[in-house]
């Protein structure tokens, strides 16, 4: 399946969907409620606590004082925005197999998730990992109005993503660690990659994000040609597009079975990594559409839900 350059208009409508990522509470006030994280001010009463010097006297429950003769202060459910970090792997491996269009699928997925996030009044930042240069990232975009016109965040994100190219080598774990270091305030990190690397190398980056309070979702984009290499070749010299290393392979039945077993092991290792790090893992093949993936697989694993 070949994908053309993604445009916002080409994506299906995701109206009514919101992102739900565990442990991604931001610091800025917002609409997203975080039960169990009481705060002194708010709308929805969640709990009471004993008055301590410094508490706002306006939140003293005077009925409780009268009936219980105790100073109790109201606590409210935290309402914060979620800063969604869309981390898109742009290493050269995203460009092969060419006809699978992994990078195009990844761009479409990032655009779809950005739309869902902005529509849910979350803030969005997109960062490109790799692509031949230092990590590039957008400012934080929020849904809103400016000077009577809709904000242009969606269009700018689309233009930014459209310029993304698969180029160069990326150490994914190190790139994630670097991102966590540069953005220490917690948020939701949605990592879109082909994860064609050793899971142990990725784990360090995921743990660094988790350590800073990020809710992490690993979105695995895998090409149909990687699942079924017989579609791509029967014999030839395989060349790693990132390292340049080569290996002659004849795709005999035994070799194919061996590869399929190794691939299944790799995918299982990624799932185990997600479980260990309390992150979410979802896999999208390029044979499916982004719409199917978002409303199907991501809803199933709980990354998106209806309002």
């Amino acid at each position, binding site marked *: 399946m070949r994908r053309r350059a993604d445009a916002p208009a080409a994506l299906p409508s995701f109206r009514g969907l919101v992102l739900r990522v565990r442990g991604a509470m931001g610091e800025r006030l917002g609409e997203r409620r975080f039960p169990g994280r009481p705060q002194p001010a708010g709308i929805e009463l969640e709990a009471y606590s004993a008055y301590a010097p410094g508490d706002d006297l306006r939140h003293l429950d005077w009925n409780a004082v009268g009936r219980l003769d105790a100073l109790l202060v109201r606590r409210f459910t935290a309402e914060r925005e979620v800063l969604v970090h869309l981390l898109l792997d742009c290493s050269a491996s995203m460009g092969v197999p060419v006809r699978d269009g992994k990078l195009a699928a990844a761009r479409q997925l990032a655009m779809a998730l950005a739309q869902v996030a902005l529509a849910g009044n979350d803030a969005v930042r997109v960062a490109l990992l790799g692509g031949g240069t230092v990590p590039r990232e957008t400012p934080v975009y929020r849904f809103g109005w400016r000077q009577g016109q809709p904000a242009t965040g969606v269009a700018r994100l689309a233009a930014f993503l459209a310029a993304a190219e698969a180029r160069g080598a990326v150490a994914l774990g190190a790139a994630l660690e670097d991102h966590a270091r540069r953005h220490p305030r917690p948020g939701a990190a949605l990592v879109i990659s082909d994860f064609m690397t050793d899971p142990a190398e990725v784990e360090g980056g995921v743990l660094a994000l988790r350590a800073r309070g990020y809710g992490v979702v690993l979105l695995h984009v895998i090409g149909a040609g990687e699942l079924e290499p017989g579609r*791509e070749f029967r014999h*030839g010299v395989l060349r790693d597009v990132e390292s340049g290393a080569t*290996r*002659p392979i004849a795709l005999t039945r*035994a070799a194919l079975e061996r590869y399929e077993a190794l691939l299944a092991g790799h995918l299982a290792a990624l799932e185990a990594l997600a479980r260990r790090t309390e992150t979410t893992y979802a896999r999208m093949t390029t044979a499916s559409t982004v719409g199917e993936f978002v409303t199907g697989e991501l809803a199933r694993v709980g990354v998106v839900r209806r309002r």
Partner: protein
Amino acid sequence: MSAGVLNPTGALGLVAVAVLVALYLYDRRRRVIPVGTLFLWKQVAASPLDRRRFRPDALFLLQLLLLLALVGGYLRPYVQRADARPPGGRLVLVLDVSASMQAREAGETRFDVARRRARALLDALAPGDEAMLVTAADRAHVVLGWTADPDRVRQRLDALAPLDTPTRLGAALELALGEARARPGTRVAVFTDLPREASGVPADALAAVDYAQIGRTDDNLAIAGLVVDQPPFAALADVTVTVLVRNYGHAARSAVLEASIDGEPWMRRPLALGPRASEPVLLTGPRRAGVVAVRLVVDDALAVDNRAFAWIAPAEPLDLLVVTDSREVGAAFEQIAHTVAGSRLEVVNRARYEEEPLGGRRVAVFDGFAPPAAMNALYAAPPAGSGICPGDGLADEAAVVDWEVDHPAVRGLEGLQALRLARVRRLATPAWGAPVVLAAARGGDWPLLVLGDESGRRVACLGAELGPALGSSDGLPLLLLTLGTLRWLAEQVGQRVLVVETGTPSAAGSFRAAPVPGLRVAGDPPVVVAERTGRHRLGDALVLANLFDDRESDIGRDGDRVWPATVRPSAPLSAGGRHEVDWWLYLAAAALLALEWIVWLRKEPA
């Protein structure tokens, strides 16, 4: 049913199959597949490719079939029906019947020799063999198509006689070779006096021809040209005739030149010409108009070029009515009339003519208007909307681009392209006439001079304004064109003479008559081709035909020579129940190419 191939050397194309396999093997070693990572593949056993067995894929098989189809087509395979008749002996006889074949030496003509040899070939044919008879003169002519009746061929061969025309042997040879290619095993035999290298056919094609050259003598004197110089409206005393006599032999000869007009002797002059020499003879002072017959009295090998004919038109004085409002035009015509002895000229203005239309003149010139008239008339610069001379507006800065060189009104006029016209009317071609001179300017071309017969009179429409330049040296081309047109208008109707060269098509004009012996008339518009020199009567027209052709008159050859054929023409595409199937293979190759393309598109990554 049998099968075979016509081009066995095409099997060399199978080398391409080996090339294809080699390319695949090379590609297998060379082919690099980019992958995202090798960390999985590193755990799969590597496989040295050059040690592996060659396993063709669907694309390779399609390409192999495509190659085999192409090579198969190149082999030119055929199938042949079992009941197809095997080709028998076939003979195409090509005989040169041009004028030079009339050359007489050793008591017989060259054509007699050719006919005798052709008859010998016919006698050698086996029963059932077929023959075809083709003659070559100014054109190729199939005298008798394929026939297995030798008596019929002999009969037609005996009835043949050489013509008085030039030779175009190439056309007849191509025709015969075409027949030979269509029927394998056909023998082509040519009998001519032309050297092989002058046949007009490439040497490799002549290799399939039995070529017999006949003749040796070069003893020939000929009238190589005859020109009558008769200025318009000039008196008979001013007419001159120039005769060019040429000795084509390598020995000096003497002869007597006799000239007569309508049978009345005019002049007799002895001539002595050196080897290969020419001599022009000027004849002056004809006593009457009519057909000039010039004859060389000499005993040489070829008689047909010893006579020639020309025409001296009756001398008619200028008898002209000029209707013009231009004082300069009137003065110019008066100046012209003054220089032509015996002229009658009357110049009137338009009002005077409209008040009382004048007649009694042979020709009228209407300058700038186009009234109906009973006499022959030249309409100069006719106004727009004229019924006689239709046109569609004016043009500036026009020039003459073409003219009918054979038309009597402009015959002998050279350099008409020098005629530049500042302002000219764009004439259309009316139903009664034909364009004789064409002019062009920015925006296209159109007739400048239209001539024809309209309601029993001769009419000329001239798009140019006559103007005062007519009497000056700048207007010389226009003056010559005007005088030529007036001469044509002044000719006596019914006195039509056509002087032609044999074998050369000439416009027959309005001649409508059944063909006569020695003349061919064909086409639309009709052209006349003379096959015999001399005087011919075609309806009410007189046709004078001459042979002025150096190739025919220069009859010297190297003696009788024969070049036997070294090859036979290759087999035809389909003959004798044989059907080639190469195009089916080419079609299959095209289909395989399309299929291979589709498979490649599905297989190859973008």
